[in-house]
């Protein structure tokens, strides 16, 4: 347990010390809120769907948590390159504990980033139901853990950052854009409908949006179940990948 704690603490310290990257990571969500939020707002309202910022804000919060989590998980590649992972691997700690410490550290960091984006969205005019904040927090936590474990599992297989564009463009971006974060997932063309339904992050976006607005597409219990189940699955895959790493 203490090993998990110190791994978690290290991630947190590294994050807090990189002030420029915290601010930098806020750039993209701000642009999304401004350009897409206010840009598509009038069209969305004309379609009779109401206030687009109200719809978009939860999606942008999930985006920020998803990106930060996966990138923090991928930081394991740096630990490999700069030798620090060897120091962790020769310690009397199981690989699974290392994976858990990393995952929880990455998830915590992403939650901080997500909460910052939430506060910014309030400035942009987002008005959530505050009574369901705890439920929203739970959804966001699960999204963070799932994405962070995913990043760590991928990082276990990579030796350098050369595969990064591939991961970003063919995994991270589709997971976000095809999650219903920026458009409603009702009445979609059937291909898109299937894709959004098998994307676990759709359930995170919908759960968070539902917690804030009271309107769900999927039942919140189903969403929690999917996020929880997929997290366990990815952690199991990650644990296997970690056990195979030879330095």
């Amino acid at each position, binding site marked *: 347990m*203490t*090993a998990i*704690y*110190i*791994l978690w603490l*290290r991630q947190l*310290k*590294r994050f807090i*010390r*990189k002030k420029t990257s915290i601010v930098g990571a806020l750039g993209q969500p701000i642009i999304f809120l401004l350009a897409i939020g206010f840009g598509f707002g009038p069209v969305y309202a004309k379609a009779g769907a109401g206030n687009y910022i109200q719809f978009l804000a939860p999606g942008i919060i999930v985006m920020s948590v998803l990106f930060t989590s996966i990138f923090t998980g991928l930081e394991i590649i740096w630990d490999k*390159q*700069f*030798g*620090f992972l*060897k*120091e*962790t*691997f*020769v*310690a*009397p*700690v*199981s690989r699974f504990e290392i994976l858990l410490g990393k995952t929880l550290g990455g998830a915590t960091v992403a939650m901080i980033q997500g909460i910052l984006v939430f506060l910014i969205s309030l400035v942009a005019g987002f008005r959530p139901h505050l009574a369901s904040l705890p439920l929203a927090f739970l959804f966001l936590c699960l999204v963070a853990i799932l994405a962070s474990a995913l990043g760590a599992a991928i990082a276990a297989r990579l*030796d*350098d950052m050369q595969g990064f564009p591939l991961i970003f463009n063919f995994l991270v971006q589709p997971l976000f854009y095809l999650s219903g974060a920026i458009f409603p997932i009702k009445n979609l063309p059937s291909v898109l409908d299937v894709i959004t339904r098998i994307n676990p992050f759709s359930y995170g976006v919908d759960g968070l949006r539902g917690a804030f607005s009271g309107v769900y597409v999927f039942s919140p219990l189903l969403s929690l179940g999917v996020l929880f189940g997929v997290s366990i699955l990815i952690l199991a895959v990650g644990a296997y990948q970690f056990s195979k790493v*030879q*330095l």
Partner: protein
Amino acid sequence: MNIIEIKNITKKYGDFTAVNDISFDVKKGEVFAFLGPNGAGKTTTIKMLTTLLRPTAGEILLNGHNVMENPHQTRKSFGIVFQDPSLDNELTSYENMQFHAILYGLKKEVYEKRIVDLLNLVELYDRKDAYVKNFSGGMKRRLEIARGLLHSPTVLFLDEPTIGLDPQTRNHIWTYINNLNKKENVTIFFTTHHMEEVERIAQRVAIIDHGKILIIGTIEEIIQKAGAKNLEEAFITLTGSTIREEEVNVGKNQMRISNKLMR
């Protein structure tokens, strides 16, 4: 008493045999030098001894623990200074030490005192709250040695600990290591390409090449058997004078080189 017993270990990467059926023992309290040209199998052997790599065949006992079957007990028994730097540059020297202490399950009252003692030993106490990224190569090495000793290991592995350091720092480092061995009876297992370092400190030497142990014994025995004037000459006589290219893990090796340059 033997602190390390290596029995017929082999490591293969596909068709390539990095370490080919080697066996030898290291005695408790000994200073043991493990020599060989680049790519001879030194680092692969150390990685197998320290649970980072699984041998393809064979058995290793370290401090009485079977390395493959009982990795956690083995890990508590040794400290290691890797060939490449392995500190977290974004943390301070104290935080790097504390991370290690907690990872090894040391109690707070134990590690707080021990970190202070060890930082004093390697003359870094006044830099305890400085970020490691601002350290010179020599300071990083000293910190890594202190860190390797934090959990009071019985064996300390040092894989080319003086690479890229100036003579002053090298001299300091070997003085610490020698003191440790004398005062605390820590077994030292090290590799280096500097033969004068071996002559200065080692009690026994093994020379490995192409994954095979060529010779093992005291410095005098090796010089005598090779019919040479000194250890350097004996080393070249035994391993030949051609320059080696490391063929395994080209990518990783490239990384190793760039890490060295960046240090």
